[in-house]
């Protein structure tokens, strides 16, 4: 079972959380084309590797936050606030 670090509660087991999918998807203006709207609603990169996604500590504090998680190894490389930008890769 994965262990996730809630920014408020600290490390907790995976089954206290729910995954909200890819984070920070920008909504296009409502005047956009059907193609653009379909891309916003449904098309995803779905990467094998690092994925920026949002999680909620549903059975805990209830807070939303962001993760950078590898979808193949499940390694978590960053935890950051729901409104914060994605941390840059390899800050060194």
């Amino acid at each position, binding site marked *: *079972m*994965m262990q996730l670090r809630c920014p408020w509660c600290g490390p907790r*087991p*995976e*089954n206290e959380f*729910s*995954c909200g*999918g890819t984070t920070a998807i920008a909504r296009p203006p409502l005047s956009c084309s*059907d*193609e653009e709207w*379909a*891309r916003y*609603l*449904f*098309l*995803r*990169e*779905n*990467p*094998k590797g690092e*994925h920026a*996604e949002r999680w909620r500590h549903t059975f805990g504090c209830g807070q939303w936050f962001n993760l950078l998680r590898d*979808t*193949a*190894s*499940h390694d978590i490389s960053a935890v950051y606030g729901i409104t914060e930008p994605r941390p840059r890769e390899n800050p060194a």
Partner: protein
Amino acid sequence: MAASRSRWIRSRHGSDVDASPLRTRYSAWNLLAASRQGHRDWAPAWRDAEPKARYDVVIVGGGGHGLATAYYLARNHGVHSVCVLEAGWIGGGNTGRNTTIVRSNYLYPQSARLYDFSLRQYEQLAAALNFNIMFSQRGVLTLAHSRHDLDAQSRWANAMLCNGIDVDLLDARQVRDIEPRLNFGDASRPARFPILGGFIQRRAGPVRHDAVAWGYARAASALGVDLVQNCAVTGFVKQGGRVVGVTTPRGEVRADKVALAVAGHSSVLAGLAGLQLPVTSYALQAMVTEPVKPVLNTVTLSPSLGAYWSQSDKGEVVIGGALDHFPSYAQRGSFDVMQHVIAATCEMFPSLGRLRLLRQWAGIVDVVVDSSPIIGATPVAGLYVNCGWGTGGFKAIPVGGWTLAHQLATGQVHELAEPFQLDRFRTGRFVDEAAAAGIAH
């Protein structure tokens, strides 16, 4: 073993006196006749080919859907210049990782037509492929634990009847007659999840999954299709925006049309061609117990508990459950879901509670928002997909291959595949198949 066999075959063919062709056809007579030779004159089931420089069609993915597409291209349409490129080994992905159940108990007419066509193909597949796929039509039994379940299942079963699919609604006593080892409780200790009834599709049941892959591989190979294993596609060759081939570690392979049948890796491959799909990849796990004598009569499914059970011909109890609820490409699955599925097993079949688990694994499934597949052309010219089957791709192998082969060969969308085009994500004409998963996701 393999080396000694090929040496033996060479020496046999080297001898003019004793040369006779290797056996290719499986039958009782051939089995008997081959036993005189100690079964050493059987031909390999398929040719392990090297990729050529060009084909009419290249299919990426040597699982059930890819192999079926290749077979129907050759058999239904006379397109023999076909290559299947498989990164691992034939049938080693989701085709070898599912719980082997074939059914067509879907809700909407579009899905019912699609999946029942598939079920009917499965019924005649052993004869068509000359390969025993061991289809055991023992029935899929869905349990109702509440008044709400009973009402929902009446609707579900009546929808199936309207679609011309066989189904029987059952009361509690009928369920007990069919599957007596279920936990019905008694007066002193009532069951936590009482069984009030259910419904059964009697034509449904398990098929030997490896046999489907091997049967299609053998039949396709016999029709001239090249099957290339251990050959991952690393990129696409494009000319003026059109896909005209793929790159592999063994060189470039050109083709008029390239089709993807790679399930959970659809986004990864499509991404190499600059295309995004409405697909998210999740791990779906399954597990088997140690083998025991026959104890289960049907495939039993409890939507409320999120688990289902059947018994393999070897005697293992095969247990499946719901998805891991976060995107994943790890073919192992999370302990959380495993624990849930095992708890459900102990609750519904108390007599199985002392069995030990032998194996647990996961396959990576390609989930789309309406739980219906995508079969057909993409916005990238020359590139086609067969994906989006999510948790239920195995049952659809014949129809997935049949309809995609039709489109690749004729340029026309097959009638059965019309509702399942990629364009529906723009138009909003979904086939929101609530019954697709069978269990609540």
